[in-house]
């Protein structure tokens, strides 16, 4: 409980900082009528919210994916969810370019769901229970899907759009009216938080979970929906954001274990905080220009991950 309080305080501080940092000088803007309010409500608040929603949603969907696969080294970004969602989005863009936004998002989510379900099938067909086999197959699967998306994008002159989705995510384009889809990712995250016990029991394995009166297949389906929706919304709004779903759940698991009822909220707060730190750093390092959050996260995430692996033997 103390951890939740600390993280909440940290997140509030970071959010306040995020509202004050950016290319435009808020103090100078106050001199002009209404400009400060426009910058504040039109850009800073949406951006801060977008980062927090994405971070929390990605971290939680990382946990969900890890519970489904019973493997700590996977996240939606490494099992093909993002790439297959991009494939769905690309298909709608090509065949029904005028479709309503919700149709596009539905297509992305459904495609993300299908791509992840195919991955689960693949994993089941592989007899080896080697821990590293699952993430390796996931990387290959997402690589294949990514290549298909790039190829189609190339052939249809949509390569620019495709690279925005698949390349490292960044939040500089977020303004009011262009991030609201992330609230759907937020809603999916809340759903996962409410089902925390079910995902925790799923992690005990199908045999024990069934014995406890859970229907594992139903929980897996719920988890896949959460993961697909979150990935599709984040991917379509800001692009793929790596590492959050991998690093945050692993750190939280080391510290407090996998009783998700207690830890999932911490994971969500941790994900939001980590992404916000990275986004603020990205805005500051070459101010007034920006480094994409994905790049900052790549560096910080890699260091954190190495640290995790380094410490692994000591903590068993």
């Amino acid at each position, binding site marked *: 409980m103390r951890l939740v309080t600390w993280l909440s305080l940290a997140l509030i501080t970071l959010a306040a900082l995020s509202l004050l940092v950016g290319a435009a000088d808020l103090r100078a803007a106050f001199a002009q009528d209404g400009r400060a309010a426009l910058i504040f409500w039109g850009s800073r608040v949406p951006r801060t919210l977008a980062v927090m929603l994405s971070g929390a949603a990605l971290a939680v969907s990382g946990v969900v994916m890890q*519970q489904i696969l*019973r*493997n*700590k080294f996977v996240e939606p970004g490494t099992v093909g969810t993002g790439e297959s969602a991009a494939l769905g989005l690309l298909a709608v863009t090509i065949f029904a370019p005028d479709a309503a936004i919700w149709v596009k998002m539905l297509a992305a989510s459904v495609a993300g769901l299908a791509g992840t379900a195919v991955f689960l099938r693949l994993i089941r067909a592989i007899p080896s229970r080697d821990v590293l086999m699952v993430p390796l197959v996931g990387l290959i699967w997402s690589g294949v899907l990514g290549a298909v998306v790039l190829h189609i994008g190339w052939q249809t002159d949509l390569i620019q759009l495709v690279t925005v989705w698949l390349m490292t995510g960044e939040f500089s384009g977020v303004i009011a009216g262009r991030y609201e889809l992330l609230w759907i990712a937020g809603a999916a995250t809340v759903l996962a938080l409410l089902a925390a*016990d079910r995902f*925790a*029991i799923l*992690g*005990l*394995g*199908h*045999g*024990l979970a*069934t*014995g*406890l*009166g*859970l*229907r594992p297949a139903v929980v897996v389906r719920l988890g896949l929906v959460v993961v697909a929706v979150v990935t599709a919304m984040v991917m379509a709004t800001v692009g793929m954001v790596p590492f959050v779903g991998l690093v945050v759940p692993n750190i939280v*698991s*080391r510290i407090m*274990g*996998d*009783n998700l*009822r207690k830890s999932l909220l911490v994971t969500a707060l941790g994900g939001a905080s980590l992404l916000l730190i990275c986004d603020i750093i990205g805005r500051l390092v070459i101010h007034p220009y920006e480094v994409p959050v994905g790049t900052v996260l790549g560096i910080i995430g890699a260091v954190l991950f190495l640290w995790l692996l380094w410490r692994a033997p000591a903590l*068993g």
Partner: protein
Amino acid sequence: MIKVQALSHRIGRAEILADIDLALPEGKITALIGPNGAGKSTLLSLIARLMPVQAGQISVKGLDVAQTPTRDLAQVMAVLPQSPSVSSRLRVAELVGFGRWPYHQGRPSAEDHAQVAKALEVFALTALGPRFLDELSGGQRQRAHLAMAFAQATDWLLLDEPLAALDMAHARALMQQLSALRNGGRSTLMVLHDINFAAAWADHIVAMKAGRIVAEGPPAEVLTPAVLEALYDTPLRVEWFEGRPLVLYHL
């Protein structure tokens, strides 16, 4: 009572179980014995609804396992699959706490907490309660799983080779615990590898071979040289010790 009628099971072309009929009595410890590949674990898994029934019918206390909502079944029988491997970092008390989940679905009452505390105590795990499972020995982990099944407080306890990871003292302690439960009117169905544990503790023995039941009854009737030599395809001696059969298969 657990009733199995005309149960058959195949995996691919291989016939795992062939036309099994069984009626397992309540208030007894029933042991499933037989050589490797006899279908014991498959039978237990089918009764425990861990696999879908392909042909035939199974009911536990009158509830058809294929039809009854799984949550209702979780309040009638607790299941411990063979060597469960929990990859989650859970504390012992948290794992045992999940045994109460079929009842509270996330909102444990005082009664649930009391049952968990009792299960921890019975399996000598109270001191290990706050420890993570991945920091324990195989035997301690196995006891934590047993405590979880125990906390589920069901009439039936289905255990697949529960002694596998336990040392002598804990194996005997578990059998004593099961027999205390039996004296309280509860029932156990277990796959047992060590036939002498079956001989010493079971009330009812079901001997399986090649997917069929070859003998069924109290230990004195089933654990005879004639039955066992045919069952395991190996010569052995059966002595009597304190009124129970003792199988000398290792000499």
